[in-house]
């Protein structure tokens, strides 16, 4: 080797050395950058690349009645979805006779089996399972929605490839129609995996029922398989709260049954029964004649998908006299024993008020006027107060404003301001005409009268049960004093007179002292007054009032003579008294005389 060649070799070697050093330096520099300076960023990026976050869906809370009976509950259901692409001509599956090994079946057989399980027509099903007539195979075809886990398991055993069950939550109402319009119903969420409230309590209690999503963070390798030993970060889902109602499903059943029975009896437009606790204002039952099964809300007429007890305002008729008599007694304008000469016809400011039945002029007590429900007498009593005074009392009783129970569509009714009352309206409002209210308003008024004059806002929600079993109470309902305690006592005696010797003698319940007020109102349509509403609002037992039951029948048809909600009231009230073991009344009736003098039985 000559010296030039040696020189060249040396040069090359040096060059290579420098190159290697440079490369080494670059790698070292990169290492320093990655490990030293930029370490956390790179680590985070790697972490983010590996990490997958799964959403853990919470279970929607149940709705239960006051005794814990499930009214609404969420269950697992599956949607069956098939991918039509890349399917082979035959299906290979595990043998279904329990032996090991596999077998091949054709698509026809598979579809036949599938159709039997899903109870569908095999021909229709085949159209979904396989692409039709050279159509492009679809990647996502829904074969069945909301099938039960058992059906899903059977379907999976058929072994059709690329048939996937998608889990979703579905709402069920095990009691069927019980309290249907109160519970409302749900609709599918946008992503179809769960449900959200659409109506009734399901809608208004959405925030409580829905719960909070949880999440699970796992790390996966490049091939998508989970790396086993990595730490799992899991935030558990918080399930929705159970909503506990004040409803008693048994009482509600009786209310619904009686309402439906009454509706059928007279072919009425609707009948509604409200049961309320006097001392707490809690709603025990709201029974409508039109049944809504929340499992299938579409089967019910849209008008009756909400409870008519809160959505339908009507002229109450004579039940409205209770508020006026209470106001007059509260103001000291009259007492229950104030004597009045009640004719068949009264003319005030050129307005003539008739009683429906011609009767002789009677010397009656105020209590008697209430018991016999004479309009003429009522006007004489009501006239002792100014329009403004009566209006203020009616407002305090809750008329003219909606009662919010957690159900949407609550009607406020109509109550015009006294300065807008016309000459006729100022008298008609005394006996329940010229303004409107719902059945629930009536119940609320009688609750106040029976509860020592204190109106407790009606409530439907007892509490919210958390996952740990603790119970969160809702806001305490507002309590308003409407009339004095003494007035309330007098009103109970007046109500007893109605049942003892007035218009409500059919509302007696053996063993209990019952008081209340009947009412017949005119039902208006766009053609004018062309129907009637019949109501009875009653309280029992009078020695210690516990429950208010209001039954209203709207637009009955047929024989007017039989129009009565008496049996509806007595049936529901006696059931409530029995169910809650209310001791029978041990005190004597405190009702007042109807007429002045000894003779109490005078023709109507």
């Amino acid at each position, binding site marked *: 080797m000559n010296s030039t060649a040696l020189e060249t070799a040396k040069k090359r070697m040096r060059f290579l050395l420098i190159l290697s050093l440079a490369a080494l330096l670059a790698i070292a520099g990169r290492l320093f950058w990655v490990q030293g300076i930029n370490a956390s960023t790179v680590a985070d990026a790697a972490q983010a690349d590996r990490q997958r976050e799964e959403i853990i869906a919470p279970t929607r809370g149940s709705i239960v009645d006051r005794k814990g009976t499930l009214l609404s509950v969420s269950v697992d259901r599956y949607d069956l979805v098939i991918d039509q692409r890349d399917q082979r001509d035959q299906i290979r599956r595990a043998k279904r006779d329990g032996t090991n090994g596999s077998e091949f079946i054709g698509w026809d057989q598979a579809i036949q089996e599938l159709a039997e399980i899903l109870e569908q027509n095999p021909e229709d099903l085949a159209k979904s399972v396989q692409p039709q007539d050279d159509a492009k195979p679809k990647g996502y075809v829904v074969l069945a929605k909301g099938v039960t*886990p058992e059906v899903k398991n059977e379907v999976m055993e058929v072994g059709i490839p690329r048939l996937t069950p998608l889990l979703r939550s579905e709402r069920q109402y095990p*009691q069927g*129609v019980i309290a249907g319009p109160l519970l409302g119903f749900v609709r599918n969420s946008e992503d179809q995996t769960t449900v959200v409230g659409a109506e009734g309590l399901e809608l208004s209690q959405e925030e409580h029922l829905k719960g909070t999503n949880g999440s699970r963070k796992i790390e996966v390798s490049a091939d998508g398989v989970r790396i086993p030993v990595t730490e799992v970060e899991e935030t558990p889902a918080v399930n929705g709260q159970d909503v506990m109602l004040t409803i008693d499903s048994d009482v509600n059943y009786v209310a619904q049954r009686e309402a439906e029975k009454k509706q059928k009896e007279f072919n009425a437009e609707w009948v509604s029964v409200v049961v309320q606790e006097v001392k707490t204002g809690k709603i025990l039952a709201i029974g409508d004649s039109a049944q809504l099964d929340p499992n299938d809300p579409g089967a019910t007429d849209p008008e009756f998908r909400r409870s008519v007890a809160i959505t339908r305002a009507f002229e109450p008729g004579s039940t409205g006299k209770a508020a006026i008599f209470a106001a007059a007694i509260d103001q000291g304008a009259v007492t229950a024993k104030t004597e009045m000469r009640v004719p068949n016809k009264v003319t005030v400011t050129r307005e003539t008020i008739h009683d*429906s039945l011609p009767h002789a002029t009677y010397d009656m007590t105020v209590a008697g006027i209430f018991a016999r429900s004479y309009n003429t007498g009522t006007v004489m009593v009501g006239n002792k107060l100014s329009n403004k005074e009566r209006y203020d009392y009616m407002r305090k009783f809750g008329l003219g404003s909606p009662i919010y129970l957690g159900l949407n569509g609550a009607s406020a009714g109509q109550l015009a301001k006294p300065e807008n009352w016309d000459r006729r309206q100022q008298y008609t409002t005394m006996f329940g*005409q010229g303004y409107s209210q719902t059945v629930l308003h009536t119940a609320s008024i009688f609750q106040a009268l029976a509860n020592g004059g204190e109106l407790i806002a009606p409530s439907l929600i007892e509490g919210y049960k958390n996952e740990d079993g603790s119970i969160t109470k809702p806001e305490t309902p507002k309590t308003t004093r409407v009339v004095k305690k003494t007035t309330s006592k007098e009103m109970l005696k007046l109500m007893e007179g109605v049942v003892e010797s007035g218009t409500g003698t059919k509302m007696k319940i053996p063993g209990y002292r019952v008081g209340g007020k009947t009412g*017949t109102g005119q039902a208006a349509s766009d053609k004018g007054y062309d129907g009637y509403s019949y109501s009875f609002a009653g309280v029992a037992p009078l020695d210690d009032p516990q429950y208010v039951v209001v039954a209203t029948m709207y637009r009955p048809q047929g024989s007017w003579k039989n129009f009565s909600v008496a049996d509806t009231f007595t049936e529901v009230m006696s059931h409530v008294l029995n169910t809650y073991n209310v001791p029978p009344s041990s005190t004597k009736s405190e009702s007042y005389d109807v007429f002045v003098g000894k003779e109490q039985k005078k023709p109507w």
Partner: protein
Amino acid sequence: MSQRAQRRVLKTAAMTAQPVVEGSAARDVRPEPVAASELAGNDPRQRVTLSLVPRMNETNKRSMLVMVIALVLLAFAVMVTLVFMNTSVAQRQYDIVSLRNQERALSQENQALLKEAQSLSAPQALAKEAKAIGLVAPGAPGLVDLSDNSIKKSADKAVTAEGNAANYATLPLPGQSIREKADTKKSESKAPAPTVGQNSKDESKTSNEASDSKDSTKSEAKEEAATRKVADDGRPVFNDSELNGGTIPAPMIKSPTN
């Protein structure tokens, strides 16, 4: 190296081991002892002696073999453990998945059973069952005053199933569609047949006569309903325009005509 040093030490030891006195020439026989510290000083050129590693004997050979085997075994054990751990972790994953599935299956079964139980115990379902086995609603209860042991009110007899007009199974059962009911209701309303009679017919053939008689009373009532305006049983007849609110029958209010 050690051999030589050993020898030297032995030599010193041999010297010191010699008896101090041997006859009369004791002092001459025994060499002058050399102090150890001075030895190095006296002989600065003497270096640290080297010695050969003792030759491996049979015992050493065996221990070496044991050691190698142990190491191999250890390595093997570690590998096996790792493999086992890996597979067990993987197995656990499968366990978790299968347990999750099991949990879901059980909770689904629970859901289904609970729903069935609740549906069976729904009031209208109970009412239907009760009716089917001939139960009827009780009459009004009797009242006993415990303070004076008197019977305030005797109980009413329950109306027997055949004569009981109350139909307690009117509401649709859970799972029963309202649609069907609405359809049947429509067809029924065209032909006005009383539902009470029909239902009792369905239940027992023996009550056919009773239901027939009920049918006739029902139709009488219908006729009466049709002629309600003229019918009069103590109450005065009045026309609809007079039914103007108030109680049953409704009162009215009229504006003066002039």
